[in-house]
């Protein structure tokens, strides 16, 4: 098992109190697994992705553990986490376009980064990897501003995977791209896994149709909790959680890109995470809701590799 997350709770501190953005999440990602992570904005998917690599100033690790390759990651210890970062767990951020220091040539920046992590920069390996994503080695002598958006994204992808991490988190990396670039990026990610440059991958997105193309499994989150996790095919074709069902049914046709606003097209709003109601959080919007839903349903395995958090999912 590459990644084991157990009852992870991460809250946001705000003035009005703690926002329970991630409220008891348990799942695992196997070696070689590419897991898509979907959900509306505010569902906690981004919080989850961030928690696994770096909590920002307002986030607090309240409880639960994360194990990567058998080692527990000290989420709230910023320096302790450094041991894992880059080497064990790495990130392709949403903001790839601006993730590179504008005042350093790319090659130099990579060199300095590696050196600061105590790694020996190997020019040849770097160039090979760039080639993999279709970039010439010239980019190393360029400043970020001289590259196009797509090029920058690919550079970031190369940099992030340079130390062959066990887990690569790709956070909404395609949202800024057009359809054909999205496809290319998706393919590149697949390539990384297939060549063994990364062991497992977590692809955070709001676009199930895209993630469906590359993911082995898809996990759906709702209001800070897990709703459903299943192999990609199963989830898309036979979802069991009412929320997933609504999500999927909102897709005009599997594999076709759909508009972001469709997801929010589901009637009603997600509950406030400041003081979330007890029990199932989808209750208010759920057509199937009944008394038992006042109790929090477990994230139970209803079929091999298929987990659902719903009393009616049996």
């Amino acid at each position, binding site marked *: 098992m590459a990644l084991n997350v157990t009852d992870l709770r991460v809250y946001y501190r705000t003035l009005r109190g703690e926002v329970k953005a991630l409220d008891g999440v348990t799942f695992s990602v196997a070696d070689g697994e590419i897991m898509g992570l979907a959900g509306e904005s505010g569902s906690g998917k981004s919080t989850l992705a961030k928690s696994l*690599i*770096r909590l*920002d100033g307002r986030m607090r690790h309240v409880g639960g553990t994360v194990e990567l390759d058998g080692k527990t990651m000290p989420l709230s210890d910023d320096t302790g*986490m*450094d*041991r*894992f*970062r*880059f*080497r064990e767990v*790495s*990130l392709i*951020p949403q*903001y790839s376009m*601006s*993730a*590179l*220091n*504008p*005042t*350093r*040539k790319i090659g130099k920046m990579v060199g*300095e*980064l590696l050196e*600061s*992590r105590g790694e020996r920069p190997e020019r040849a390996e770097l160039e090979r990897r760039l080639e993999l994503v279709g970039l010439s080695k010239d980019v190393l002598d360029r*400043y970020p*501003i*001289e590259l196009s958006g797509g090029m920058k994204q690919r550079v*970031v992808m190369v*940099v*992030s995977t340079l130390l062959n991490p066990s887990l690569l988190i790709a956070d909404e990396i395609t949202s800024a791209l057009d359809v054909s670039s999205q496809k290319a990026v998706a393919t590149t990610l697949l390539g990384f896994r297939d060549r063994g440059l990364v062991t497992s991958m977590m692809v955070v997105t709001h676009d199930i149709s895209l993630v469906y193309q590359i993911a082995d499994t898809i996990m759906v989150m709702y209001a800070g909790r897990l709703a459903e996790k299943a192999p990609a095919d199963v989830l898309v074709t036979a979802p069991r959680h009412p929320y997933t069902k609504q999500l999927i049914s909102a897709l005009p046709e599997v594999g076709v890109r759909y508009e972001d606003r469709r997801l929010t097209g589901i009637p009603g709003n997600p509950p406030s995470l400041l003081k979330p109601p007890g029990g199932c959080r989808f209750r208010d919007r759920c057509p199937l809701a009944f008394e038992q839903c006042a109790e929090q349903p477990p994230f139970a395995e209803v079929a091999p590799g298929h987990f659902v958090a719903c009393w009616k999912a049996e």
Partner: protein
Amino acid sequence: MRRYFGRKLLIYGLTFFVAVTINWMIPRFMPGDPVQSMLSRANVAQPAAVEAMRAHYTAMFGLDLPLWQQYLNFWGSLLKGDLGISIWLFPTPVSDVIVRAVPYTLGLLIPSILLSWFAGNRFGAFAARRKWLDNSVLPIGYVLTATPYMWLAILLAWALGIVAGIFPVAGAYGFDLQASWSWTFLGSLAQHWFLPFASLFLVAFGGWAIGMRNMIIYELEADYVNYLRALGAPTRLVRRYAFRNAILPQVTGLALQLGVLVAGALVTEIVFSYPGLGHLILQAIQNQDFFLLQGTFLFIVIGVLIANFIIDVAYVLVDPRTRTGMGGAA
């Protein structure tokens, strides 16, 4: 890059043109006749003699020509480096008066600008996001940068000069000395230089430190910093990058602040009777010597333009974006 410099030079050229025109225009459309006032100080009894002298000086200053011709002549003599003749220090050419004062002003300005810029940036970057420094030292920075230059100068002159008697508060070197390369003389020079320098330095230092601190805080929230952090880059590297990026607006800021700094030097010189351009301006104003005032004005404008250009060059060196032909921020 050529486009970048081309544009800059065009702006500077136009600015110079505007400055010269303002310079020429203002005195001629303001009340008061410079020759008249000079003569009235000459205290000549006989009206006939006054008339003769008046005609003489008016012809000499070219005030009897048609305006357009005066304007052209003005440019003509300007390009020859002739800024006219000082009324206050008649018959010294204005350019000579200025040239004598300039070294003192530069001697104050250059070290105080550069040192305050370097020290302020270092310090501001150091203080940013370090709780106790941020809370204890930055208020001081705010007070410093809000202090009117002349007031700090007055305070220093009073406390260290008059009350404590450690530093002299007037002149550029002891009145008992003559310019020479002796240690006594250089020591005296440094002693007289210190307080004006210190007050300029402190005010500017406060400004740069605050500016840098705020810049760094912005930069530390930038995406590339988050990315580096996510990849476990140590704070040292992150701060180095943030500093490097935050310094860019500070370089531009230097160009923007130049006018303010020059103004600060002018009033500081006035407080310390330091014989630079500020002192000259005060004298020109008090003696209604408008040729000198104009000359000094032009000289300062030229100086600021040159300094701007130097900063532009420096900016190109530190900001790759301008070099790669994408056009800079500045």
